[in-house]
């Protein structure tokens, strides 16, 4: 109820303040015009005369200090006199009529209309401020994970049949890298809610993570059950494929990779990896891509080196050349390329990545101690 009242009152209060500010500003401007009364022309004349007097004083001071000799001083004074004559002769800027009331009021009216109108167009007077400390949603967020998990654990110890509790805590365990606990939690969920392809895959995932790359028979069983239960389940097939690769069961791997690829829409992030996996599996586990890569690098390096040594290039291109030589295990050429790059880019600022690369590859740095 009070929030509703706020919503209506907020803009009204805001607009009254805005109008009051505008009125104060306009009044200040209006009274500024009335407040100052000075005879304009005298002040300007006085100012000009004062200026010439100062210039004359300066010439005389210079003469006294010996910075000007007598003839120079006379010349300077003569020039000053001519300047004064010129300024007297030049038509004075005619002091036209003073600012009248009409243009002033017109200007003030435009100011008020422009500001209020423009704000109505741009502003959001209905939105209140929301400092972080005064926001109710914040409380929910401020609980940290450990605390929350401990609370749920205590509750599950009292009521182990609480499906919702297990569902919440299982992914939290994965996040906390407590994989064995996560697997146990997923087993509980499956027991309480009945199995599904997703749940079985989650359980298998926790088991595989817990095994830390060593594989798990239970996980394989669960994944196979999941894949069998849902012919359109991609995640279980991807796990099965990569586990089969690990176990060198390339025929099975081929089948799972193919199934996963067939299920893909074409934009999935795992798709390139799956295609490569399929290619490797079809080749009985021999990764030809590395050999192809090596061949490609060799071809590319020749062209790049030729160009860089002849015409120079960016520091990134030099880094690429050095990296390529290191991949090809050609230390001597890598060192030569690095030295040439240092000649081209003497400032360390330019070659951060290159230096790291060279250090990593065991090249000699700081060769030329300046």
């Amino acid at each position, binding site marked *: 109820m009070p929030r509703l009242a706020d919503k209506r009152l907020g803009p009204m*209060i805001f607009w009254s*303040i805005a109008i009051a*500010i505008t009125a104060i*500003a306009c009044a*200040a*401007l209006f009274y*500024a*015009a*009335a*407040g100052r*009364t*000075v005879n304009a022309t005298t*002040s*300007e004349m006085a*100012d*000009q005369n*004062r*200026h010439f007097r100062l*210039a004359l004083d300066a010439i005389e001071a210079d003469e006294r200090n010996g910075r*000007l000799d007598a003839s*120079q001083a006379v010349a300077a004074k003569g020039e000053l006199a001519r*300047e004064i004559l010129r*300024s007297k002769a030049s038509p004075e*800027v005619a*002091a036209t*009529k*003073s*600012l009248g009331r009409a*243009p*002033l009021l017109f*200007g*003030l009216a*435009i*100011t*008020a209309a*422009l*500001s209020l109108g*423009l*704000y109505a167009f*741009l*502003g*959001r007077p209905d*939105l209140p*401020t*929301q400092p*972080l*400390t005064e*926001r109710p*949603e914040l409380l929910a967020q401020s609980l940290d994970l450990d605390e929350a998990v401990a609370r749920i654990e205590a509750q599950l110890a009292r009521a182990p049949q609480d499906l919702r509790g297990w569902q919440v805590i299982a992914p939290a365990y994965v996040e906390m890298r407590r994989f064995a606990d996560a697997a146990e939690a997923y087993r509980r969920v499956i027991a309480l809610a009945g199995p599904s392809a997703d749940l079985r895959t989650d359980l298998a995932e926790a088991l595989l993570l817990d095994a830390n790359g060593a594989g798990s028979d239970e996980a394989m069983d669960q994944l196979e059950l999941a894949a069998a239960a849902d012919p359109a389940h991609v995640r279980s097939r991807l796990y099965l494929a990569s586990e089969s690769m690990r176990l060198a069961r390339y025929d099975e791997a081929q089948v799972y990779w193919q199934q996963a690829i067939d299920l893909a829409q074409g934009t999935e992030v795992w798709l390139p990896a799956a295609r490569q996996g399929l290619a490797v599996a079809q080749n009985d586990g021999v990764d030809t891509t590395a050999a192809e890569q090596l061949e490609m690098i060799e071809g590319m390096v020749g062209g790049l080196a030729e160009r860089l040594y002849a015409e120079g290039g*960016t520091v990134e291109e030099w880094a690429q050349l050095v990296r390529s030589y290191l991949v090809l295990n050609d230390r001597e050429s890598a060192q030569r390329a690095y030295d040439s790059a240092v000649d081209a880019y003497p*400032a*360390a*600022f330019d070659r951060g990545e290159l*230096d*790291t690369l060279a*250090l*990593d590859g065991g090249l000699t*740095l*700081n060769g030329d101690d*300046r």
Partner: protein
Amino acid sequence: MSIELGHFALVLAFAIAVVSALGGLLLWRRGERLAAVLSQAAILQFVLVAVAFLAVVQAFVVSDFSLALAANHSHSLKPLIFKISGVWGNHEGSMLLWVLILVLFGALAAAFSRSLPSDLTNLVLGTQSLLTAAFAGFTLFTSNPFARLSPAPLEGGDLNPVLQDVGLAIHPPLLYAGYVGFSICFSFAVAALISGRIDQAWARWVRPWTMLSWTFLTLGIAMGSYWAYYELGWGGWWFWDPVENASFMPWLAGTALLHSALVMEKRNALKIWTIFLAIITFSLSLLGTFLVRSGILTSVHTFASDPTRGLVILAMLAVLIGGAFMLFAIRSPALRQGGLFAPISREGALILNNLFLATAVGAVLVGTLYPLLLDALTGTTISVGAPFFNFTFGALMAPLLLVLPFGPLLAWKRADLVAAGQRLMGFAALAVFLAILISALAGNSISLVPIGLLLGFWVTFGAIAELIERSRLGRIPLAESMRRLAGLPRSIWSTAIGHMGLGLTVLGIVSVSAWETELVTTLNPGETAELSGYVIAFDSFEQVEGPNYLADTGAFTVTGPNGGTEDLMPERRTYVASGTPTTEAAIQTYGLSQLYLQLGEPLDDTHVIRVWHKPYILLIWIGALIMSGAGILSLSDRRVRFGVPQTARKAKPEASL
């Protein structure tokens, strides 16, 4: 409601600026009463924009993420100072800061212009309001800092970690004060062109503003340079980055303006050139803003690239600068050049100064814009790097530095070069001796190094020559000399000190460029490395948690050549909200030299360590600080205070409005 009130204040300031600009520029002959209204309007604009600015600051401080700006650029875990400085660590906020400083200068001009002729006041404040209207309008319509979000997110996107540093609290406000301060000179130039009032009095009004802006700009650039030096982690203090050039060009032009306004004030000469420089200087400030804010350049300064904004700024630039130059083209033939002088005179020396500085601006401008234009027109990407700038700029500065000590010793109008030369002979000999001695000790062969040293010492000592000359040191009793020194006008002191600062900066630059040493290596805790007599021992490595980042920290013990040991703790931080890393180099000062230690990326099981030894690097910034100090000293000289001294006036109430 505070956010919306701030928003309204900005809108009202914009409306007042629009009306003031129209009133000031169209009705400028309407005398004192209009001047009073415009002055009041200028002060109101400042008050209102200040309210708007404070509203945004308040929203950042209390982490009110219903303000889109805070949601995008703040974070509730940020330390308080970075919440405040984060207000201008983004495009919209920095535009608001720009407008705030613009209206601050407008209000100062209004406050100090009470004794100015009313037509000049009207035109100056009118032009200033036009600038405010243009920039406040740009801010409101294309980059409104008051955009709201509903519903508000629970956490903000955080500020670029590189900017989470006290440097952000100091560098932009100083730099903007410098940039924007030149707007007053610009407004005075436009006023002079429209009203035809261009005389020595005009120069006397303009020069303090030039001096003030130049002082801020010097501090701003020096601060930016030192910040880049310690924060970017590469030990470089100047990169000829287009953004740095964008701030350096107005500085060069402003330095030229400072000197040519001097000629105009003292000798009533170089009038048209001075007006031209005043327009050029502010135009370069605007160009800098355009380059940085349009997103054409990518750097830590570019917060968002949005082509629309770029086009709008470009259009504003074209209208403001184009309009000013058109005015200049139409009106300048009608202005009278004044003051004749011989080539060898103080005027002549100052013209030489202007010539070299203007050419240097041209060189930097070409080097900065050429790659951009080439990219835009032909799509070819080239990079004009440090070698180009070092060579062209160095070649232009060398003769300037060579003739610099002569300038203050030459008389106005017609001077005796031989006499000035004789008075400088001792200092020249001293500079040559020191340059040869140091080069011999360092084992340098004939190269640019001794020449650079020579110029540095020459300028530094030559600056004192006038003080010694004026005090007749050595020719009369010491006490008498001291009394004379103390009695010298502050303007003479400020000239000497300013030029000396420049000489020290040159010495610092030469020394670092010639004798800097660097070492890149891998170290494990327990191992040591050595560079230029410093032994760097890697004691331990640990990971610590900061308020909003995780840091890899290395503990090092550095043993200096004289035996003393210091503990250094360089860090690599990863900021939680954005996941971006920063390097926090550890810097140890030895006298005027520094040892710069950077903990590089982790490499397998070891760490990349970069160490630099920077001999006499502090001279670069000390020189800049001394130069700004000279500016402040000059401003404190009673004779060049803002405008003319107040004359007593009898105020009598006017009968009717």
